[in-house]
């Protein structure tokens, strides 16, 4: 297991006066309704999880579910009411202002839903801004910023002002700015939600390409379940401040933990999300037919081939070792079955 970068231990964020006192009195048993009656709003309710180095955790929830609040607790844009947050083993809430600024200048980058670019600075100046704040000299920061401009594919537009760019281009600037200081931890707060569907898809692909190259530790906030499935290593689904389920996309689709999560998974085209490994039977490796499929294939791509088989289909890993098998009927069961259970 690789090292843990972000670690939360029962983090609470409660808005309102006396929030701290009420939280202490409740002994960790926070009920949103009783708090609301007493004038407090629960933003994050007992969140505990870890994010490993190079992992992408997507936090998914509808508006008001507390996902953005959780992110702001971890970036300490707001102070958590209770609990502990560790960044690379350092207790975030213990840091003083100066240490916090140091941390942000070197370790963290953040992308915002509404881009949050500085209107009076050009593209390249916006990207160089965190570097200049840090004290890097102008020449170096601009040349570094130009590298970032190339990375996000905005060459030739470096002297434009944000007002002259389209939404997608503005968010590229936002992304470049957040990466300028080469942070280890990357926060993205609904970065693509304000974009048109087509641009959004393009940006998602671009984002995956970047992440492949950079391997940052990422917390990504979204309200779009499809986006979460597409990008995530693991997904945390939030509702009313509580993390309902935290698991890999495949496990969430196959085994929704609560009724709320199941509602999201209902409409998901499983054949596009799941890979063979998710549905194979790892225990039976005998009586296989001639066809072998890779365990990393998305079901959709191999479904037709498998369905024409009568025998078990062997599943192989990248070294051509057989790691399991799959019944053709299992494919049908995965794609069409299990949905109507209980509904």
């Amino acid at each position, binding site marked *: 297991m690789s090292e843990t970068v972000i670690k939360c231990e029962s983090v609470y964020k409660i808005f309102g006066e006396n929030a701290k006192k009420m939280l202490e009195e409740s002994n960790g048993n926070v009920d949103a309704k009783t708090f609301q009656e007493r004038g407090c709003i629960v933003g994050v309710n007992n969140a505990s999880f870890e994010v490993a180095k190079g992992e992408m955790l997507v936090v998914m929830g509808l508006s008001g579910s507390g996902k953005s609040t959780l992110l702001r607790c971890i970036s300490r844009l707001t102070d958590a009411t209770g609990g502990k947050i560790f960044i690379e083993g350092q207790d975030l809430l213990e840091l003083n202002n100066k240490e916090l600024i140091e941390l942000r200048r070197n370790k963290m*980058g*953040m992308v915002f839903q*509404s881009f949050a*670019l*500085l*209107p009076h600075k050009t593209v390249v100046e916006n990207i160089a801004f965190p570097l200049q704040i*840090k004290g890097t000299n102008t020449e170096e920061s601009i040349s570094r910023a130009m590298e970032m401009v190339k990375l996000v594919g905005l060459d030739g537009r470096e002297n434009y*002002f944000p*007002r002259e760019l389209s939404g997608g281009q503005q968010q590229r600037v936002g992304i470049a700015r957040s990466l300028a200081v080469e942070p280890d931890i990357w*926060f993205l707060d609904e970065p693509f939600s304000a974009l048109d569907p087509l641009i959004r898809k393009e940006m998602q692909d671009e984002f995956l390409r970047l992440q492949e190259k950079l391997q940052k530790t990422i917390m990504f906030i979204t309200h779009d379940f499809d986006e979460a499935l597409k990008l995530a290593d693991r997904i945390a689904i939030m509702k009313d401040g509580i993390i309902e389920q935290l698991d890999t996309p495949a496990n969430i689709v196959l085994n929704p933990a609560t009724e709320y999560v199941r509602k999201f998974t209902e409409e998901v085209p499983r054949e596009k999300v799941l890979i063979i490994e998710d549905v194979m039977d790892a225990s039976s490796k005998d009586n296989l037919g001639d066809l072998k499929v890779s365990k990393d294939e998305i079901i959709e791509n191999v479904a037709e081939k498998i369905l024409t088989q009568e025998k078990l289909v062997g599943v192989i890993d990248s070294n051509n070792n057989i790691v399991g098998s799959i019944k053709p009927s299992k494919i049908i069961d995965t794609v069409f079955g299990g949905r109507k259970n209980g509904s």
Partner: protein
Amino acid sequence: MEYLKKYPKLFQWLFLLIVFFALCFAIDVPETYKFIRGQAEFVKDPNQSVYFFLGKEVRYYAFDVFWRLPPLLGWLPIWINDSLFFLMNEWMPMEFWNEDTQEFKTRPLLLEISRNLTSFMTFLIELIREILLGGLETIVAFTSWDFIDAYPWLELPGLPWTIVAAGAAILSYKLSGKGLALFAGLTMIYISIFGQWKPSMQTLSFILVAAPLSFIFGLGLGIAAYKSKRVEKALYPILLVMQTMPQYAVLVPALVLFGVGDHAAVIITMVVAVPPMILLTILGLRAIPPEVIEAGRMSGCTNWQLMFKVLIPTARRDILIGVNQVIMVCFSMAVISAFIGAKGLGFNLLLALNQLNIGLALEAGLCISLIAILLDKMSLAWANKQTDYFGNLTFFQRNKNVIFFAASFVIGIILAYVGTFIFKGSFNYLFEIPHNKGISTADFWNKGVDWIFDTFFVYIKAFNTWLIQDVLQPMRALYLRMPAVATLVLAVGAGYLIGGFRSALVVAALTLFIALSPWWDRALVTLYMATFGVVISCLIGFTVGTLCFQNKKSAAFMLGVCDIFQTFPSFVYLIPVMMLFGITDTSVLIAVIVYATIPATRYTIEGLRSVPVGLHEAATMSGVNKFQRLTKIEFPLAFPHMMLGLNQTIVFALFMVIIGAFIGTEDLGQYILKALSDKNGAGIGLTLGICVAFIGLIFDNLIRTWVGKRKKHLGIA
């Protein structure tokens, strides 16, 4: 009964009115009551009652408390006066080193501070004035008179007017473009050849000192208020009162604290100009999207970096709109400050009006108006200008404005030098055209006014007489006939019906302050004049606004006209009305109407414009005609905004009524004017100013509360 249930508010209002009128009829006018004698005039009269409070004697005419409340606050102005006197002349005596006599001298602390402040201001003003006009005070301030006698060539020569004109044009070009540059150039040439150069530059130097200082203080306090709730809460009431306080009223205490002259005017101008700057700074900083602030924080900004690299640049436009406000307030104060001896255009205007030389007044007024428009347009252009990228331009392209200015500087000096040969023995017209030595059209205008008077005298007089005898006098009598208790009940009742208990309390406190001051009767007269002006202004403004709104072009044109008229200092409006109607109440009222119609028109157009396009389309698809659309959709939705216009109209009308005292009225303004020439006037002037401000605030509170509720109700908050 059914109606009662359907329209409960209507019946509550009816009930309030019935109570009000019942009180009016039930309480008789006391036989001893005479308006002009008033209640507390500080003249001794055996019929007066006397009471002592805090050791101050207050004399007043006692009436039935239902008719007029006794002036229980009568001690306040006297007390303010005595306190000021004590602070200035007796409080905290300290030893101060005196440069001239080379010895320590004992002086009260505040007096010393005030002296130092004024001499500092005087220095600043003189410095800028001498750059523009020439002189030697600045050099003297650093050396001595002997020194300047020995080296007379050190005297600052002043800039030739051609250079200032070119500078104004180039700056306008940079900020906006050719149009404004042309306007700036022509304005400067006009000023110069009509011999208004010197007073104009004096006024300009006044602004160049007052505006930057006001900007710095306003920005600083605005930032402080943005950062700390406590500071904001402390500033808020002051800001509120300053917004409705007539500018004229703050001049009086300035007189006591800082004496007569430009320096006193600059200091007091800052008191008036800082509040709008604070408000717009807070507004601008609040309007920054929270994500931009978070982006700054996540970039690792310290608080200082966040403020100066992220917040202020992002709020640039609002802050520069604040600068625009500051400049306009400074300009109108520069004109009004003539009352306490500030030099410049205002002084000339005041002089001309005092001599009833309408022609001269008109010329000065035109100058003031032109400069006002120029300053307004330039500062707005600055606010709206967006930064451009200059990196890929050549050296010449980047610095062409500086180069052009340097060139015109040299050419200007050469011209001025050449001028010394052309105009030998007389004035060098290429350097500076002295006051009253330019072209003057004053005679023409004076003759014109005389002609108007000779030709239309009968009609104007008939109109005057009719208006005064048949409209104004009866209206005034009605207002004065209101028993104080009835007025209080009406005001507090209205407060309760509109805003509930809280509003009622605020209104009661404000009204009581006026009722318990010695000037209730005068306040009623002010109110009657303002009411008359407001009613007619609103009728005109709402009609004109609605008509102009029918066509996009005419609406834009009308808004432009409003913009221009709004930039004129209120004082300027007195010139044409005096020209046409002489020195009567009619003149004041017409000035009030003209001035107060501006916001009424503007808010009507803006309100109608703000109706969402979607609703227009929905209405059109329902097959409404133009009239139905106006009455069923546009008016109901625009009405709250139009009521805000009414609020502004009231404030504008009050300001003008107060300034109308210059022509001669009998209201609060007249007393403020009197206080200006009274050495014990500070307390009176300030209290009167607060009274006027409170009248404005009563309406402000009622209207804003109503608008807030209505907008919430309509879902357009």
